[in-house]
Every structure is written in structure tokens, then in C-alpha cells.
């Protein structure tokens, strides 16, 4: 498909470096699916969907910086929804999010709660100023917050929140956040990797499974079409948590 024109109808500042953009168009998306977002004249970048009609963006580089310059009435080009999102399984689920990784999990938590699934969420953030979507997670179920600086909830990483839960109690565990956080959680769930679904981040260029830039060693998984949500057991023994490649294809 060619990019669709997505006119911005609302901009919400979630934190100083995170904004949600709502569009005039809605997406028929499964939580965890993504859009290739064309910031005209700048670049095209993958963004996970945080609302049926919105994305939540952290200012990290040139393209996301340019998104912060946009106003209501401006538009972005969007291709998608693309890829495979989260699959809802079981009666009790655990969501573990880090930073802006909370975005697709909020949509997932709402979808799960609407189906009567019991939802518990652990959100790991640097400090209380980085908390996003508190009401959405609390509306879906229990919320445990961890902060690196101890300004709210449990002091420590998201994994510190895991120690107060019995992971055997959950039918499925959903992850989205910094790669090292997710790799750490998978590492702590020895034997339960098959019930983990992780949304992973790689350098996506085509979003169509043909350019190879997001390929994961050693099997050559293509997260842009086979993911971005990939089952934990498929990530064990891969490059995940160890290295990734930059735009030239060189490891870094």
C-alpha cells in the first residue's frame, strides 16, 4: 500500500519527551502491530500503535524530533498496520513494560480486560515524571510501578517488580520496552519462555520482509513481518539482548 494521509486531530503531551498523536483515521489493528510513519521530508520510521487512532512517540532522533514540531491539522504518511501483534491467550496475563514500551501494552491491556481476562501490569520507568497511561493500566487491572530513582513505587528496574509476583500464576507474559530489560525478564523466566510474547525493536526499512535489515541472527527471523511480537522461546540463543545492526547492516 502507499502511505495513507493521517491528519492529526489531537496532540497530548504525556511527559516532556513523550507525546501521543491522535489521527482522523482509525486503524484496524491488533495490539502490538505497527505503522511505518513517514515524516515527510525527513524519514520513515516504525511506530507501534497505542490507540485505535493514535501513536505515542518518544523524542529520540531526527524523525521523532520532527514529529514534535507538528501541530493539530498537520499530517503524517502512514503505511500499516503491519506485522504480527500480540495474541491474547489464557485467563490471567502479565504485562511488563519499560518506558515508552508501555504504549502498545496499554492497548493490549484494554483489549484483554474487555474480554474478561485478568490483567496485571508492571511498568518500569526512570522516575515518576516518565509515567504514562497510568489510568489505562489501572482501568485494565492491577498496576505495579517501579522507578530507577525510587521516586514512585518499587525502587529498581522492572524486573524488581517481578520478584513480588509468582510468574507461574500467569498464562501469558507480554513484554515491550528496552531490549536489555526484556532479555533480563526472559532470563528470569527459565522454562516459561514459550508463554512470553515480546515486541522487539530492530532497524526496519521496508516493513515488507524483503530488505533484510531487521534480520535476527542466527535463524534470520524477519521481525518486520514475522514480528514485531515474537515468542520468547524463539529469541533464546539469538542475538536478542546481545547486539543489533545499524542502518548499514553492521553490528553494533
Amino acid at each position, binding site marked *: *500500500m*502507499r*502511505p495513507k*494521509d493521517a491528519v492529526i486531530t489531537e496532540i497530548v503531551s504525556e511527559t516532556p519527551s513523550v507525546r501521543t498523536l491522535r489521527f482522523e483515521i482509525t486503524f484496524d489493528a491488533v495490539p502490538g502491530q505497527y505503522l*511505518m510513519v*513517514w515524516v*515527510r*521530508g*525527513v*524519514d*520513515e*520510521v516504525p511506530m507501534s500503535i497505542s490507540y485505535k487512532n493514535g501513536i505515542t512517540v518518544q523524542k529520540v532522533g531526527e524523525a521523532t524530533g520532527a514529529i514534535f514540531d507538528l501541530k493539530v491539522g498537520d*499530517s503524517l*504518511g502512514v*503505511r500499516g498496520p503491519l506485522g504480527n501483534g500480540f495474541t491474547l491467550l489464557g485467563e490471567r496475563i502479565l504485562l511488563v513494560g519499560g518506558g515508552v514500551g508501555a504504549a502498545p501494552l496499554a492497548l493490549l491491556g484494554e483489549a484483554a480486560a474487555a474480554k474478561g481476562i485478568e490483567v496485571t501490569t508492571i511498568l518500569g520507568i526512570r522516575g515518576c515524571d516518565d509515567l504514562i497511561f497510568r489510568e489505562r493500566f489501572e482501568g485494565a487491572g492491577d498496576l505495579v510501578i517501579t522507578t530507577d530513582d525510587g521516586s514512585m513505587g518499587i525502587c529498581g528496574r522492572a524486573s524488581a517488580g517481578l520478584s513480588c509476583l509468582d510468574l507461574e500464576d500467569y498464562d501469558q507474559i507480554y513484554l515491550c520496552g528496552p531490549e536489555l530489560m526484556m532479555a533480563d525478564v526472559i532470563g528470569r523466566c527459565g522454562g516459561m519462555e514459550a508463554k512470553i510474547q515480546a515486541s522487539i525493536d530492530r532497524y526496519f*526499512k*521496508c*516493513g*515488507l*520482509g*524483503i*530488505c*533484510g*535489515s531487521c*534480520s*535476527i*541472527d*542466527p*535463524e*534470520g527471523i*524477519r521481525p518486520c*513481518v514475522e514480528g514485531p511480537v515474537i515468542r520468547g522461546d524463539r529469541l533464546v540463543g539469538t542475538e536478542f539482548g546481545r547486539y543489533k*545492526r*545499524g*542502518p*548499514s*547492516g*553492521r*553490528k553494533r
Partner: protein
Amino acid sequence: MDNPVMLAAGILGTTGASLKRAVLSGAGAVVTKSVGVAEREGHRGPAVVQVEGGLLNAMGLPNPSYRHFQEEIDIGRDGGAPVIASIFGSSPAEFVEVATGLEADGFELNLSCPHAERYGAEIGCEVFNVEVITRAVKESASVPVWVKLTPNVAEISALGLAAERGGADAIVAINTLRAMAIDVESCRPILGNRFGGLSGPAIKPVAVKCVYDLAGAVKIPVIGVGGVSSWEDACEMIIAGARGVQVGTALGNAEGYGIFRSISEGLSIYLDRKGMALQELVGAARRFP
């Protein structure tokens, strides 16, 4: 080569893992993404967009430079099929530097990428350059050298003959057709590079004609590429004169890597049904002058 179905250059060939996966999925040989002298990040996005009948791309030759690519070739070779390194440069000396810096089962000279300044088709549209660059690499390499040609010229056979004079072991045709798509809401060209190359089903009839013309003009083998998405497409290329086919854009179809097996199996069933060997099918369309 028993299995004539290969992975085309530029598709999934960034990593050894992808190359190996293509081989394990049934590719008879794989061609890497093009590598050059220096590391390049490629053009800004959008780098690829779906259009009527195929894909439009301007990746911009992203590559880690040949200095960081041997490991990927070696991993690809673990699959057990030949790995052909696609290489590019802006001069005979650059091509030779890359070719002598890599160990592969063959080289495919990218004289045809339509959207990178100073590279690919910008030099590969001139017969003199094709001949000189082919000869230079041929003199420095001990493995087969294939030359991939651009269709964006008046007479592709002239380029094929130049490659043959330079000593090429095979011709690969075709690379993408120069093309463009514009977003009507913003009036902007969609690709970050503004224009790029068209691939996929839309260009298959163009590729068939180029293969037919080349096979009639040169004595060395021609490998057909451009819009091959099914065994019938592969068959058509072979009947036009191709000794092998490469598959690219169709890897983005729902069956993904499964395309290699479905094409080679379909081809086998066809040959059995006709009671023919692959060799007999090559250029069969010439019986009808």
C-alpha cells in the same frame, strides 16, 4: 547448478543468517546485498513503497563495506549452496578492491542499480564501462564473474556483448526500472530519494524481452530476474533463454522464503509432464522465429 532458482541481489542478503535461511528454504544459490568499498547507511526513508504491480525502492546501497562482510558470506556458505557476492564501485579500481577483499563462490557486478549517484546504472549504461570493469574484475578474481545489467537503456544486448567481451561468465538481467511515485496529498515524491527502481510482476514482461534479446546476442549464459513470482514465471524466463532465474520482490509475498521450493517443485513437475530436461527448455521460444 542442479537447482536454477536463486535469491536475487538486494533482497534479504544483508546478513549471513538470511542467506543461509534462503538456502535451507530451497534456493540453489544466493546473491548478497551489494557491498562496496565504504560503509553506507543508504537513502532516507521511505526506502520502499508498494505500487501498482510491484515495489518501488531506493535503498541507496546500504552496506557495512566489504571489510565487515566476509563473516556474513561465510555464514551463508554454511547452508551448502554457492554464495555470490554482489559488488559495486565507482571505478574499475574500486570493483577490484572489493573483489580481492572478499572470498565468495562468485561475484555479481552491480552495474545497474538505478538510484545511487556515481554507482550502478550511472556507469553501467555505457558499453565501454561495462567491458572495462568486467575485464578488471575478471583479471583479479579466480571465481565466476556475472554482470547484472540495467534495462534503462535503448539496447540491452549491447551491454551484454560488452560484458561478454570483458570476459563475463554470465549475464544477469534485469535490475529495476527507473520509476517514481508521488503522494497526492502532499505533492511530494514518496521515496526519500524521490525516484527509485520498480520491481515485481509489473516488470516481468520487460525482463522476458531483455532475456530473449540477450540470449540471442551472447554465447555466455543469461540468468533471468525481474518479477519472477511463480514456477510459471520461472519457466517463461527459461523458455526466453535464461539458464537460471533469480527471485527478489516475491520474497515479500505471504509464503516468504517458501517461494524457492514452490518454484523449483513446480518447475520439476512441468519438466516431468513435458518429458524434458531443463537444458532443452532453455531458449525454446527461439523455435518460433
